[in-house]
């Protein structure tokens, strides 16, 4: 009868911690509605893969040999071997994005670049804390505020912290409404937050919308070739949307396709949340560093907006710079809300949305740039 107790006696305290983490993620997803599409599957998956001798992972059975487990197989095929899942998700994301607010006010795209600074600042801090460069770069990319990019970069760089990085990236994206106001208030005065920006949208031609994804792909591809898969699939999705002749494909990419990949990505990434790899001191450090990355991103965006204001007649509300991160639309909403707290007649939403979609482009370019530069430094 010992076999009935085999699982129970093999349970380690680290696995019990993982059950707690899984339950916390499920709680946050259901009760707090924090990124539920990702945190719920990840939370449940964290429990699945930490049951002793879990059949969700590859196991070795006496007399039979190795038997494939579905989650580990999905991880190997969909993430480890080809990075297919995070990449394919970009088709859906691209199909969801309306670049109109950005095309009608091109200046906003510059904020997307500035707000990637948190990635690199965090890499330096992670290195000082003793992480090797491949892991430091993978941790820094949490600052891209873009879950699929974080998973992709950490996986390509063969970081051993993929699970922790994914949890941090998605958790902090969901916590943008708490993190960003704190960071923005550190570097702005109420008077600055009250700066009004008139909104005079220019009409955007259909040809501009059609050429935009092609131009972005070409420029990103020539300067940072490693970003082609990321930027290319994002822009492919957007071209489907803007083409006007692929209505059903666009609809599918935005809904069924994106939902399916999200569902699989969440549960699959949990294969990297096995207790022996997850419950360690470094995971705590990664959570702190991920938070710092978001704070640095926001501060860099604000300071860049202030810098531009030195040379500009039409002042930009510095908070719009903080919306240059990829977390859409949470970041734009934060800026709108804070603007109205400073001045109830201040409407910054459309400017912030423009900066926010710029952040989505810049974050995938940043991912590609990291993938292009870091391997050369590891030699």
């Amino acid at each position, binding site marked *: 009868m010992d076999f009935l107790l085999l699982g129970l006696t093999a349970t380690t305290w680290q696995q019990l911690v993982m059950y707690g983490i899984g339950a916390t993620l499920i709680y946050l997803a259901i009760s707090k509605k924090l990124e539920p599409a990702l945190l719920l599957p990840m939370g449940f998956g964290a429990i699945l893969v930490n049951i002793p001798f879990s059949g969700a992972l590859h196991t070795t059975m006496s007399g039979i040999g190795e038997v494939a487990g579905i989650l580990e197989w999905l991880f190997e095929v969909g993430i480890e071997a080809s990075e297919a899942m995070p990449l394919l998700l970009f088709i859906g994301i691209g199909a969801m994005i309306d670049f109109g607010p950005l095309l009608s006010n091109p200046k906003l795209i510059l904020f997307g670049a500035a707000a990637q600074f948190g990635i690199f600042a965090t890499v330096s801090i992670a290195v000082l804390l003793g992480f090797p460069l491949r892991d430091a770069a993978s941790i820094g990319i949490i600052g891209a505020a873009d879950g699929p990019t974080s998973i992709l970069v950490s996986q390509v760089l063969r970081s051993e912290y993929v699970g922790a990085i994914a949890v941090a990236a998605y958790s902090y994206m969901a916590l943008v409404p708490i993190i960003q106001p704190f960071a923005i208030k550190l570097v702005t005065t109420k008077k600055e937050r009250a700066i009004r920006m008139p909104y005079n949208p220019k009409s955007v*031609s259909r040809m501009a919308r059609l050429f935009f994804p092609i131009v972005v792909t070409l420029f990103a591809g020539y300067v940072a070739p490693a970003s082609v898969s990321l930027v290319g699939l994002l822009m492919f999705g957007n071209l489907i949307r803007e083409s006007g002749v692929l209505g059903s494909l666009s609809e599918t990419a935005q809904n069924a396709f994106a939902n399916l990949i999200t569902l699989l990505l969440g549960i699959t990434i949990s294969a990297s949340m096995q207790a022996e790899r997850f419950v360690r001191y470094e995971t705590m450090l990664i959570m702190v560093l991920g938070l710092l990355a978001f704070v640095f991103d926001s501060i860099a965006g604000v300071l860049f907006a202030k810098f531009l204001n030195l040379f500009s007649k039409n002042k930009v509300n510095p908070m719009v710079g903080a919306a240059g991160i990829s977390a859409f639309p949470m970041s734009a909403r934060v800026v709108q809300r804070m603007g109205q707290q400073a001045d109830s007649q201040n409407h910054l939403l459309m400017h912030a949305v423009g900066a926010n979609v710029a952040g989505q482009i810049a974050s995938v370019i940043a991912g590609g740039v990291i993938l292009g530069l870091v391997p050369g430094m590891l030699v």
Partner: protein
Amino acid sequence: MIELFKQSLTLMWQGMLAIFVVIFLIYLVLLLFPKIFKNGK
């Protein structure tokens, strides 16, 4: 450690430069778009 930190600083300036170059090129093209595609064509 110091060598690694220097590498991370190199990554910082090269990375930010690459991102700004791409974004600035896109910005220039966006400025040209209204001239290229007049009257919504």
